[in-house]
């Protein structure tokens, strides 16, 4: 299982990368493995300003559905529309082509408070 060191993580199994005040968010390799084959990513919060830990969408696997939680407070600016026709990208490349949203964060300093790769890895028990 893969836990890239340049990313930050949440206990809800999202990963975050940050460039300036724009964050890219997806779900972790661990999360996609637990969910199994992902068939639909439902995000309809683009343009909304939401607080950290709000639900910004849901991910549907064959057998289960799981909410997606916003790691930081800010405005959702973009979603990965290519997942509409190829949701399996989340399974195949969770940290790359399987990204889910981009957001403009209110306070980039909050990024440092998220879990680092080692802390997240120990949380998954891997």
């Amino acid at each position, binding site marked *: 299982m893969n836990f890239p060191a340049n990313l930050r993580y949440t206990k809800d199994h999202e990963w975050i990368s940050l460039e300036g005040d724009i964050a890219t968010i997806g779900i972790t390799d661990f999360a996609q493995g637990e969910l199994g084959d992902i*068939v*639909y990513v*439902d995000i309809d919060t683009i343009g909304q300003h939401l607080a950290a830990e709000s639900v910004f969408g*849901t991910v*549907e696997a*064959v057998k289960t559905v799981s909410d997606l939680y916003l790691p930081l407070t800010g405005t959702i600016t973009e979603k990965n529309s290519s997942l509409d026709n190829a949701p399996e990208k989340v399974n195949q490349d969770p940290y790359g082509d399987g990204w889910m949203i981009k957001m403009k964060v209110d306070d980039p300093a909050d990024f440092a408070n998220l879990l680092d790769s080692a802390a997240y890895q120990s949380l998954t028990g891997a």
Partner: protein
Amino acid sequence: MKQTPFTAKHIALGAKMAEFAGYNMPISYSGINDEHQAVRTNAGIFDVSHMGEFILKGEHALDLIQKVTSNDASKLTDGKAQYSCLTNENGGIVDDLLVYCIEQNKVYMLVVNASNIEKDWEWIRRHNSNNAEMHNISDKTCLLAIQGPNATKILQPLTEMDILDLKYYTFSKGKFAGVDNVLVSATGYTGAGGVEIYFEDKDDNAEKIWDAILAAGAPKGLKPIGLGARDTLRLEMGFCLYGNDIDDFSTPLEAGLGWITKFSKPFTASEFLAKQKSNGVEKKLVGFEMIEKGIPRHDYMIRDNEGNLIGRVTSGTQAPSLGKAIGMGYVRIDQAMLDNEIFIDIRDKNIRARIVKMPFYNQP
């Protein structure tokens, strides 16, 4: 948690395990879609040893079966099996099951759902006023399902029984992979063809048979399959899952199981069901496919085009062989027509769906 004789095999194969009906069962191995396709196009092996088996014996065995089940078991001759329901006095389904006729009028085997073993046993025992001999052999019985268009071709070299030409819902008993008294039955709950095999868990039978099937099948692409794909496979066929689509409060007539409800003999629910049949049902289990994007799930609300609640989803999934989302649910009878547009309430949004004919998928 209980184990089956194959639990260690599943774990060694890297299966994702979870508790089901008190057993530690494999949910998936290589992924639900991959396993599903293996069964639809080739072959897969399922451990379903958690299911329950009862033997009913003696001169009153058939009478007892006739009294508690909805189908007509008197039609069964040696080597034939039938799908049936245990019903309560209010027409509700205590369980769905298979009835195997081992020896006509003398020996029958009932195969029941794992989660209902105790309930069914008590229910049948309570109706056993003539003291038919009853044996619960669930704990010592192994059950493997080998399903898929190539399943019998893969298995045939392991036995002298003719399983290639075994007719649907018939069975034979004999030596299989060096083990005596193996019951091979042309049944299964996938719609993909294949067999189910029953044998006693003694000596090293379980290991012998599992290893022989994998040795014969793996080079031909046979894969181990978990309960996840078992569910998507049965749902594509419109087969009911007990606890989801049928339960103590739904009747066989409502569930589309009129074809296994025979009024040729009295049984626990026959009076109620005869009345329901002549009055007509108020709700009916229908199959539907999503028109707009969304996956229906158990217990989601079903609405009409004015937003009125008209039913609930009982099962739903993205169907791997169809590439679309499908579901089943009970819908008020005046809304249950084929092609009727209905709406599934998915996270407070009404998503369009259409009632369609089942099975959803037709195995070529």
